[in-house]
């Protein structure tokens, strides 16, 4: 056996975690810059991945450059671990990295998500990777990206306030659904990705790191731990989360912790609706707890503290204000 062969690493068809080391290094440097300037959109090269463009390739590149064999990865789409898209991304990440996976928010070291932040409070040291279709919150008011860039530089968000004002005049309420524009660290306006308004407050002074990455648009930005995030709102007409009072999960509805969580509406053939907790990892733990209480099973992973209690009160008291409608 010649010495050269001993020194050479065994042939591998693909680099560890798919991306080549240079791509990973670039992504990590961009991430550091994004963390250093909270909310600022950092351009990056954005490689093509073997997943359709626009299907989470931005988030996936971040995850692939963070992941290691010791990582525990959770992937959700619309809150669900078991949706085909989440299952597919998880399959790809583990296939390429050897990382282990979990559905338990509290166990995960990296949590890649499309359109949701989990119900259980994330902690220090965890990374939340949000997939972003459109990183530019100003797009609706300024489709020329170089002009939008200038507006960010000048902190000129007057047109966004105008949009909100027009909504109040026309509809007597803010009309923005998901991706509610929010100000990070008092400086940059971001699109928090299409998370429901329910999830937007969870970014405020969060213990975990959030990285938002848009593959098609080649931009990433971050909300570092313990950073202010405020949705745009007029002082006399506060921002409102989705009103789902009265929506009760059909499986666990009676349990403590089963109310005041974000719900999916499931249309029924008879024209009515049923409701289910959107965060399936959380639901799983509630059900396990229910079984353990009835003696059927040993206690599983403990259900953690949640951002909202059963009455729908947010854990940072005073952050969300009661609704006010303009006359």
């Amino acid at each position, binding site marked *: 056996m010649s010495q050269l062969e001993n020194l050479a690493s065994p042939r591998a068809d693909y680099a560890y975690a798919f991306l080549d080391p240079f791509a990973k290094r670039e992504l990590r440097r961009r991430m550091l810059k994004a963390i250093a300037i909270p909310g600022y959109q950092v351009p990056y090269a954005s490689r093509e991945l073997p997943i359709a463009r626009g299907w989470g390739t931005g988030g996936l590149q971040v995850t692939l450059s963070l992941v290691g064999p010791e990582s525990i990865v959770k992937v959700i789409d619309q809150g669900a671990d078991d949706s085909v898209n989440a299952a597919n991304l998880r399959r790809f990440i583990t296939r390429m990295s050897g990382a282990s996976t979990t559905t338990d928010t509290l166990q995960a070291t990296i949590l890649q998500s499309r359109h949701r932040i989990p119900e259980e409070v994330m902690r220090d040291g965890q990374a939340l990777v949000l997939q972003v279709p459109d990183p530019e919150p100003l797009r609706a008011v300024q489709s020329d990206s170089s002009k939008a860039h200038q507006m960010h530089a000048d902190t000129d968000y007057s047109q966004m306030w105008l949009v909100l004002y027009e909504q109040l005049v026309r*509809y007597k309420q803010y009309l923005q659904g998901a991706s509610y524009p929010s100000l990070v660290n008092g400086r940059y306006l971001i699109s928090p990705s299409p998370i429901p308004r329910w999830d937007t407050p969870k970014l405020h002074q969060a213990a975990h790191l959030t990285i938002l990455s848009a593959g098609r648009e080649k931009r990433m930005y971050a909300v570092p731990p313990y950073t202010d995030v405020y949705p745009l709102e007029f002082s006399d007409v506060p921002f409102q989360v989705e009103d789902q009072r009265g929506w009760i999960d059909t499986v666990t509805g009676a349990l403590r912790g089963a109310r005041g969580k974000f719900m999916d509406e499931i249309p029924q*053939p008879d024209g009515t609706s049923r409701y289910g907790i*959107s965060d399936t990892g959380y639901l799983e733990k509630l059900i396990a707890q229910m079984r353990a209480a009835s003696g059927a099973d040993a206690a599983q992973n403990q259900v953690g503290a949640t951002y909202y209690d059963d009455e729908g009160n947010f854990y940072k008291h005073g952050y969300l204000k009661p609704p006010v409608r303009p006359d």
Partner: protein
Amino acid sequence: MYVAAKGGEAAIQASEALFSALKGKPTRELVTAIQDTLPYLVDRVMGEASLYAPELASLAIAQSGGDLYEAVLLLRAYRSTQPRLAYAVPVAPESLLTVRRISAAFKDIPGGQVLGPSLDYSHRILNTEILDSEPHPVPERASHREAPTDDSGDQAHPPTPSPDGDGAVAASASYPLVAEWQRRAGLLAATPEHAPREPADIPDVTRDPALFPAPREHRLQALARADTGGVLALGYASMRGYGLIHPTVNELRLAHAEIEVKHPVTGVTFSAGRARVSQAEVVTTGDKTGLSLGFAATLGWNEVKLIAAATLDIEMNQSEPHPAHTEEFVMYHTEPVEASGFCIHFKLPHYVTFASSLDNLRKVISTFYSSDQDNETSADRAELEPITQRTP
């Protein structure tokens, strides 16, 4: 030589011969192989040509060497030779033999989400092992021939999954509409009532002059036969931020439609065969009265085109859409045969029109810069507006 086009016949024949020599001769086997192995390509050509004929579309692809605009033109030109013998009975979406139906609007829907045939969740990794494998004979024809009355050879897509002995249950053949649930829930306006109408009275975009605002029939027909890439470009522009709406895919279906025709003499309705069809519905909020719904359907299975087209359908209804999303802009510029034909017509000799423009350009130059006009400076020349002129 190019100018030798004046010489006519011989040059044309030599040019065609060279084109054929570079791509090989289309054969019966090639046509069959295209039809059996490239159903999505065949569907795209049939949809844009608005003629459901898998075998002829495969022939068009083979004959044009895979130049899709040429293939669509071949099929459209053939379509012109066919008389319109009868009108089919309208196909109701509830009765479609559905192999794939998904809704992005709800986690689950009455009848269930049916993933069906799709590459959506596949890992896009080139299977290079195929290159190293032994050459093998022409691929076997797919075993499913689920439309016994259809001799046009619609066997490339298998029908709904069938029980395979391990407890799997066949999916239902047809499904209720998501939009129906929304109508019952008061989120969507009721379908407008229509007085019964003779099929021959339905406006037909292939035979009527274009007038705007276009009848709804014209718009849906134009989208059905629109260029996939063109519709995608305009639809994507809307989705990405030049539009006024955010589309949500309410329901997307791939299906086989039973084409029923009333016998002209006996009046008995009979099946003339089945056709692969697809349809998409997208919804958006932002209207005080409820959801706005966009719709598109086409011959063949073409999901990307329909999602873009259904988005444009809503966009075109907005009071002040982006110029690229007005009805006239969309309908004129996504017509594949007209757009591609006009674009390549610029290869035709234009030396007479060009000479006419050159004449003006020379006069302007001499007016401003000839030696006797020495009061003009070079600075003036720099400020001169560029001369632009459109030549027909």
